[in-house]
Each structure stands twice: as structure tokens, then as C-alpha cells.
């Protein structure tokens, strides 16, 4: 498991409306604004209160949320789990309206004035920013979740990471073993090695996996390959990856070669 957490992700480019249609590109764990050659300086200027071109604003948001575990609460749980972040049109009937852009008062529920207008709190604004990033598409969303999981440290992150692991391992366990996802008990593995997997006599899967599993295995879509649960990534030479996979709980993982075709991993 020597590969960096981002190794199994191919680069991805999204288009955003900046001054014109501009490109944001994620590669090797970093997001860059391709049409802003001096983005670093623009970031500094923006931080000092200068103008915020959309690309730079999104870069700032990315940096601000690169260790924000809220992304694991909101982000998609699978490729089929599509999320829709409503557009901020006046009068749009959505709670998300309250998260409107950076410290302004917006209308909620179609009422433009009176008691229905709520000032935006900083925390709400941060949430909206996060949803905006997720709204850039699944390519960005899964990479942001991986980034947050890889960067999260400390005991305060532990409950969120445990829940994120449980929420993502449970459907993978269903695909892997055909068991009820509610019968999966997951915890964070702190020891050396890949973790532990045990199927109890009552049919409950007890799993302990490191948080790295979320970033390097689950997020790039490697969780289950060829009816085996992938527990780590050894090397990646895109589009091929050497992984460690477990065929049954209680057995040791064995090396497996996987290949990515049309965004889906399978055994090579």
C-alpha cells in the first residue's frame, strides 16, 4: 500500500463560468485554474480582499474545504447517488437559499422581505460553498471527499470518519458478500497493516479499516472488484492498479491487478 491516496484517480477537468468559460483541473491531488496562469498571486490578492474571479473563488473554496469532513456527510455515496444543488435564483423555494453567497441577506421561500429574510451566518456560507464544489460534478465531488478523508486528523474527526466508513463500507459489503448493509459494524483501524474483517456467527460483518481506505480505495471506485473487497492500493500505472483484495472475511488479502475502463474498475 505504497501508492499515494490520489494515485487511482485520473485527472479531471471541469468548466466554470468565470470571465469566460474557464477550466479547473484536478490532478495528482491538487486543483488548478488552467486559465489563470498566476493563480497564486490572484489567491493572495483575493485573500487580501481583492477581486474574486470565479475560478479563484472556487480554488479558495477547495483549499478551505480540503480537510472539511462535512463533505463526507453531503457528498455522493456511489456513482448512482446523484445530488442536485439548486441554482440560486430569486424566489427559489429551497432551504439552501439561506446559504447564499458570502455574507449577504437572501430571501427564503420566495419571500423577498419581512421576517422571511435571514442574514447569512459564516457557517451557512461555508456550507453553501461546499455544496457549490459538490455541484461541480461527481468527478470533483469524489476527489474532494478523498482529499478531506486523507487530510482529516485528530480525535475530533473520528466520529465523522467512522460514520463515513460505515456508510460506505455497508453497500460495498452487500455487493461483496450479499449481506444486509445494516449488519455491518465498522470502525477505524489504527494499527499497522490493512485492517481486520470478521463475519460473526450471526451474520454480522465486523470491519476495521484505516481512514486511508476511504481516500485511496472507496473514492476512486475500487471498493469491490471481482467479488473481492479491496483493502489497499499498492501501485498505480494508469489505467492499471495493483491492489490488495480479500475474498472472504477472515482470510488474508492477496494481490490483484485491476484495470479501469470507461470509469469502471475490473480485474485485469
Amino acid at each position: 500500500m505504497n501508492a499515494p491516496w490520489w494515485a487511482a484517480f485520473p485527472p479531471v477537468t471541469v468548466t466554470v463560468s468565470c470571465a469566460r468559460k474557464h477550466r479547473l483541473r484536478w490532478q495528482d491531488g491538487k486543483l488548478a485554474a488552467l486559465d489563470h496562469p498566476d493563480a497564486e498571486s490572484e489567491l493572495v490578492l483575493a485573500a487580501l480582499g481583492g477581486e474574486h474571479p470565479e475560478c479563484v473563488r472556487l480554488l479558495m473554496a477547495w483549499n478551505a474545504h480540503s480537510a472539511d469532513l462535512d463533505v463526507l456527510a453531503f457528498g455522493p455515496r456511489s456513482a448512482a447517488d446523484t445530488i442536485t444543488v439548486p441554482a440560486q435564483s430569486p424566489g427559489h423555494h429551497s432551504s439552501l437559499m439561506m446559504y447564499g453567497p458570502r455574507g449577504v441577506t437572501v430571501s427564503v421561500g420566495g419571500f423577498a422581505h419581512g421576517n422571511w429574510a435571514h442574514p447569512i451566518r459564516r457557517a451557512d456560507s461555508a456550507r453553501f460553498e461546499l455544496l457549490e464544489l459538490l455541484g461541480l460534478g461527481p468527478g470533483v465531488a469524489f476527489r474532494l471527499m478523498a482529499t478531506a478523508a486523507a487530510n482529516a486528523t485528530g480525535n475530533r474527526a473520528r466520529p465523522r470518519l467512522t460514520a463515513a466508513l460505515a456508510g460506505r463500507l455497508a453497500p460495498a459489503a452487500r455487493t461483496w458478500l450479499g449481506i444486509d448493509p445494516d449488519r455491518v459494524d465498522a470502525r477505524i483501524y489504527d494499527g499497522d497493516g490493512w485492517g481486520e474483517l470478521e463475519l460473526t456467527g450471526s451474520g454480522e460483518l465486523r470491519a476495521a479499516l484505516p481512514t486511508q481506505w476511504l481516500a485511496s480505495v472507496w473514492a476512486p471506485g475500487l471498493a469491490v472488484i471481482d467479488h473481492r473487497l479491496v483493502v489497499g492500493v499498492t501501485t498505480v500505472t494508469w489505467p492499471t492498479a495493483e491492489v490488495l483484495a480479500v475474498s472472504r472475511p477472515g482470510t488474508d488479502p492477496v494481490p490483484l491487478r485491476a484495470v479501469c475502463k470507461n470509469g469502471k474498475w475490473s480485474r485485469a
Partner: protein
Amino acid sequence: MSEQAETYLRVIAETELRRALAQPKVQMRRHRRFPSKRVVRFVFRRLGPVRFVLQRLGPMLLAGQARWHALRRLGPGRGRVHAGAEDGLHRLAVAADALAAVDAIDDDLAKSVIADQAIALEIRQRVFGGRFHNMARPAIAPPAGQFLAVGIAKRVGLEVEGDPVEITLLGLVIGPDRAVLTITARRQRATEDDDDDGFWFLQEVTAVDNLGGRYRFGLSGGGDDEVWTGQLHLHPVPRGGVRWLDLTLGPGTPPVRIDLDQVTGPEPAIEPLPRSELAERYLDKAAEELLAGRQWQARRLSGGVQALLGAALIAPDDQAIARLATLARRLGVSLPPGLPDGPDSDLPERWLSVLGTTGAKDGPTGIAVAAAVLPELDGTRWTITGLRSTAESAELQVLGWGGDSEPSHHRYRTPSKFSWWARDNTGRWHVANMSGGSWSGMHSDFTLALTPALHPAATSIDVVLTGKSGRVTVTLPLDWALTDGAQP
């Protein structure tokens, strides 16, 4: 705060989200342009008497709407209703509330987990949007300043559009940010006239004070065509130095004087409570719901008890669980699902008292001059303004400030953070539960229904409010001002 409890709650959120993802999306419709102010005013005037009911049913209607859309997607005649993401959100809210109630997690974390879950569901179109904008807001403290509660218990008769109307003034509360007169009104209708204004004539009430100040009134509350229970809100709030108010309820009626001078309320007693008993007190609240005949609410609470068990905050053989099981057996109701059964246990005196007097119909009929300002408890300030008693039951009018929890409790049908009991001086205990009211970010105003009826010989009543940090007891003398046999 417990890491285990937070983990437990967040894992529940993941489980509920996974279940919600197995449900069909709700149909999101764009709302048409909202009607003009004039139309809104007209509709609300027409719907005035049932607005109160709509406010109470709102969350249920919205949940039902989600189910209806889910059902429609299945096509006619299929007869299947999905439990829906809404129910999952409520289950999560009950669990979060329980963990916060026992201090296993803090209130802000509980609110944040619920709010995040609601947003996660909304962006997946599993719940309707637009209803969660207040969920993660921080608690609002009651305003600093003086609170005054004045018992009135006066009745005024007048005529409105040919109908005799009887208005009972229960009490007046003046806080730093609002002044509220609690009232009931009864209108005898000679004819069914769809064009009359119901009780909105009460907005025409006026008042003057000893300093020459003039006041207008806004009406809130609810009822039907014939009876209205609610509040008249004074504008502006009477300032310091006002010694009396003369209230004119209708043209040609003599003013009713409300003395604000030398008002001396009863002195409440405060008793700090150990936090180590929070889990037991939470379980006892489930028992109170059973005692009050609200089994449906006890079933919801069982989700909270399961959360306490799941997060290892109580043991299955806890004495409080045994008490709850014993009470359920005594009442002949099934134990809320998922709760461990237990051996018979001794029940507290107050429960035994209620069990022994349930169904009593010997209560005095009247309205008492009852008013009290309670000290701040757990970030909330409560006042009592009026007590009405009938043969079958009694009611207290309560106005509150602060404590963001009450509106969200209302929204999610989770239990209140507070427990209300009363004990009259004959020793008869009464379990109290909210039976309608209105909740906003700052204010919680409601009627507390006392079960069973007051003892006919009672001359005073202790109102006991229990929160997380302590218990407040205030003794209200039962000075029956209106006992003329008329309905209170």
C-alpha cells in the same frame, strides 16, 4: 461529551440516508408566484380560526405530502406507502435529541447533524426543500430585562355584528420585547354568516395607560367559529412607569382596568438537579407521555431510549426502564417497540397519584387569578398567565422566551426539553402536556393541559418545571375569580 455517542448518532444518519436512497425521489415543483398581500390577508382572515390547527398540523401535512408523492409515483391502486425519508429524519432527530438531553453530545452538534442530514436529503430530492432554514441556528437567549406577570381573570360581554360575545381576560405578561394578554373569547352565532370576521374584531381592541400612552393589539391563537383561545399582543410594549392600563374591548363597552402597580407574584423555589440522572429523567418523560394518554408520543420517545441504549448511556436493566415497563403494564398498553421488558418496579408517588385519579370529573369550574414569572432555566424563561379549570381537566397558559429547542421539538415531534407537573394542595398530582400553541425562534406560547382534573377542595397548586439543570416549583393560589357556572 462522548465520542461514542457522536459516532453512534452519525452512523444512524448514514443508515437513514442509505434507507432514504432506496426510496423514490419526491416530485419537486416550482411554486407559482406567491399571491399578492391583499389575497394573503383575505385568505388568512377567512382561515383565521383554523390557522392554529394548520400550524400544528403543518409538519404532519408536509410529511404526508412527501408520502403522497411517493405513492403517486407507484401508480394508482398499488396501495403501498413508503415510510419515506421524512420518517428517517424524524428518527434521527429523536435520537439526537435524546443524546443531547443526557449531555452525551451538545445541543449544537445535535442540531448540526440533523440540519446536515436534512440538506443531504434535500439535495438528493428525498424530502421537500425550504423547511430547514432554521435548524442549525444557535440557541437564542431570553432577552435581558424585567418580566411581569399579572393575573386578571375578568370577563367582558359585548355585541359584535348582532352576536353576543364574551371575552375572558386571563392574564397579562410584559417582557422586555413584548407584552401579551392571554384571552379566551366565546361568540354565540345567531346565523351562519360566511362573511363575518370571526374573532378578528379583537384586533380593534385599544388601550390607554396612566401616562397617556395608547396601544393597539395584534391577535394570535386559534379556535373555531365559536371559541377562540389566544393572545392579544400590545403595540408598543408598555414602558417603565406605567401603573395601569385601561382596555377597551369594543365600542361602547366600559374600559377594563389592569393594575400593574404593586404586583407581587409568588416566589418560585429552585432546586439544582444532578446531571448524573439525566438518562433516567429522559426515560421518565416517556412514562409521562404514557400517563398523559399520548402513547404515540411515547413510541417516538422509544427511539430516543434506544439511542441511549445503543450509545451505552444506560443499561437494559436500568431501574428507569423497569419503571417504564411497569407503568406500561399498569396502563395495559404495549411497551414502546425495541425497549427491553423488565421486572415490576416501584412507581414514583406522582405516577401512582395520576394512575389513581385518572378520569376524575370532580374538578372545580372557573378561572383563577394565576400568574407567575419563573426564573431562567436552561436558557429559557417561562411565565404562567392564567388557569382555567373544568370538571374534567385544567389548563395553564404559558408564555416562554428563548430556548430554540421548542420550535424544533414542535417540528420533529421530539419531546420537549422540559417536564411540567402540578400538584394541588390536597396531594393530587397532575401530569401536564402541551395542547396547542405557537412557536417561533424566540417565543414559545402554549396551553398546558393538566391531567386529571383539579381536586374540588384544592386551594392552591404547585407547578413544577423540570429542566436539565434544575427544578423550579411555584405555588399558585387558586383564587377563583369566575365561578359563575358559565364555561371558563
